[in-house]
């Protein structure tokens, strides 16, 4: 097949396919902007480890110690963006599968059908990268304007090296196309339809709990390892500490996300056992039938809650440190508020990133809820036609989202807090003073409420699809 034919066939779908392409392109725009912004911050010239540039109003850009965190946070934002892209790829999948089967019936080989599907994502990603580059370069002169103090709000006076921009422009569509090919690995496109290779039909087991324990133990072992090296008057190698820190946090995050599969299954069984309402029965069966739906859908949101819980506890720790510092004789004499104020600024940055990430994750949830309704529209339309109130269906969708997310959010908060517990300890000491560590219950509750609230709002928005998807016209299509 010629590339032009592949591109034509890839973009020859219905309106839903158009929406999927547009949303995929939109998520790639966001990813491109996040990566280009991170590269721009990296491109700010280093004057020295402790020397500010004196060019930017914002300390996050001006202080060399904070720039690494800014870059890391911008790159972290790509996680919910990728989750959004993953949700978008599922939108209208049954209609796309029928289209691919039609191509097979017309003589396309299985590889050609897969190529068309992969090309759709690739073309969308190319459009997204082009739009992202356009927005990035168009916004620079518009946002560039030093104030009366000569300081800029953003690093609009530096550009990342051209090769880095080129690598981003090529890598993003390639990664998107590879991800699409990966998602299609279980799909066999035949002339008479699409078959999905059966997954293991076993109920999820609570083994992600082991991953959580492993993560907590690994992260918690950093302090004993440091002591071990200190006792021998040696310093611990950075690679070991970084591996233990990042590896432990990653294992715990994965444990929380994968644990949602087991939570969904267990909650679905309990709901099925004890509920008396048809809406709960519908939700319970959906939960036990596809328990991994929650893990896929809520992954980005739970990662945000997990990081947020750790950040909230660290904020409380640094606050106590600062209070002890200012209360101490030395602090009072010298007006010290340098170190811990610096860390509190970093936590502010993490908080901001989490709010942005929750908004992006919520967009993915809307797509997921909408897709769940649209893919069941015939069965829902038949139920409504036979007298089932739409409110029952709406409640079942709400049950389906809330039943796994509430315990999963609690788990993410507990694990995030536990991960940081070895760092904070029960007592905080600074400048010869000590005070008991106070958990940031208010912030933890706020993060929990933010996550559950985001789910409720997104379900509400997703339910806008319910009326149109249960219209009588849906009964006429085969």
């Amino acid at each position: 097949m010629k590339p032009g034919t592949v591109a034509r066939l890839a973009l020859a779908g219905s309106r839903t396919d158009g929406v999927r392409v547009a949303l995929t392109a939109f998520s790639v725009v966001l990813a491109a902007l996040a990566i280009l912004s991170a590269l721009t911050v990296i491109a700010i010239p280093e004057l020295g480890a402790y020397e500010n540039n004196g060019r930017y109003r914002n300390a996050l850009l001006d202080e060399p110690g904070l720039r690494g965190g800014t870059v890391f946070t911008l790159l972290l934002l790509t996680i919910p963006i990728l989750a959004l892209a993953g949700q978008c790829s599922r939108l209208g999948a049954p209609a796309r599968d029928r289209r691919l089967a039609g191509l097979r019936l017309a003589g396309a080989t299985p590889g050609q059908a897969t190529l068309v599907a992969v090309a759709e994502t690739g073309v969308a990603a190319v459009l997204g990268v082009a739009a992202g580059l356009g927005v990035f370069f168009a916004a620079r002169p518009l946002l560039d304007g030093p104030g009366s103090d000569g300081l800029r709000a953003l690093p609009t006076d530096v550009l990342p090296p051209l090769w880095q921009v080129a690598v981003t422009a090529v890598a993003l569509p390639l990664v998107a196309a590879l991800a699409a090919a990966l998602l299609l690995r279980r799909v066999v496109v035949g002339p008479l339809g699409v078959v999905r290779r059966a997954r293991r039909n076993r109920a999820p087991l609570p083994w992600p709990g082991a991953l959580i324990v492993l993560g907590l133990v690994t992260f918690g072992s950093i302090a004993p390892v440091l002591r071990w090296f200190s006792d021998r008057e040696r310093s611990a190698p950075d690679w070991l500490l970084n591996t233990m820190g990042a590896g432990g946090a990653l294992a715990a995050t994965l444990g929380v996300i994968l644990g949602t599969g087991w939570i969904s299954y267990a909650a679905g069984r309990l709901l099925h056992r004890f509920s008396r309402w048809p809406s709960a029965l519908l939700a319970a069966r959906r939960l036990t039938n596809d328990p991994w739906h929650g893990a896929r859908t809520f992954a980005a949101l739970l990662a945000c809650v997990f990081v947020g819980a750790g950040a909230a506890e660290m904020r409380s720790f640094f606050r106590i440190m600062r209070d002890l510092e200012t209360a101490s004789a030395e602090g009072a004499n010298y007006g010290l508020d340098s170190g811990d104020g610096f860390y509190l600024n970093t936590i502010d940055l993490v908080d901001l990133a989490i709010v942005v990430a929750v908004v992006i994750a919520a967009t993915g949830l809307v797509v997921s809820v909408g897709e769940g309704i649209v893919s069941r529209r015939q069965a829902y339309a038949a139920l409504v036609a036979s007298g089932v109130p739409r409110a029952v269906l709406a409640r079942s969708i709400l049950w389906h989202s809330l039943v796994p997310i509430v315990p999963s959010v609690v788990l993410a908060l507990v694990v995030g807090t536990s991960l940081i517990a070895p760092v904070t300890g029960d007592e905080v000491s600074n400048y010869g003073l000590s005070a008991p560590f106070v958990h940031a219950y208010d912030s933890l509750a706020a993060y929990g409420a933010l996550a559950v609230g985001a789910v409720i709002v997104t379900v509400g928005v997703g339910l806008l699809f319910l009326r149109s998807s249960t219209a009588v016209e849906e009964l006429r299509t085969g």
Partner: protein
Amino acid sequence: MTILRARSVVKSYGPTPALRLVDLAVAEGEILAITGPSGCGKSTLLHCLAGILRPDAGEITYGEHQIDTWSEKMRSRLRRTEFGVLFQFGQLVAELTAAENVALPLLLAGTGRREARTAAVGWLDRLGVADVADVRPGEMSGGQQQRCAAARALVTEPRVLFADEPTGALDSRTSEALLGELVRLAHEQRTTVLLVTHDAQVAAYADREVALRDGLVDPTGLGLTAAQGRHGR
């Protein structure tokens, strides 16, 4: 005695007229086939009679009640309690077992789970598919799925059953078996059946046939069974 009546019913989809002044009366216990070519308005008429669609003009009366003026909520309740509906495609909830799908209308009416399941399994048994009670739709054949859907439509023992091309996706042997069961059960229960079809063999199961053409009742009265000869029962 007339149980359902359409008087001068008009219904359009945008600028396209689907029904143009249709009059129809259905007697209690009757099995009526509504036939006609594709796009003649037979499904639209069925949906109007079942209260799924509201006509643009005209009246739909069920017993002594003019139901087209009722709210969506009241018409939903009517469909849930007095009517049963059966379609061609995708009616079962994929995640529920056959017994749970059939029990759903009873659960909505407030019946206890154990009682609803017993009734559901009983109806699956009457339709010859009790063996798939704990099986999900995806693991059933098309005929088994349609029998489950029929069981769900009948489980509330409706006074009127609306069936829109109920055998359209089935092979002829499975169609005959399902229709035979439906007609037998309808006669046993004194259920009125409205059957939309473009298949003469299906229409032959009805007591009477009304043919539609271009949104109007065909005045010649020559339906599929008249054209092809009555057979099947």
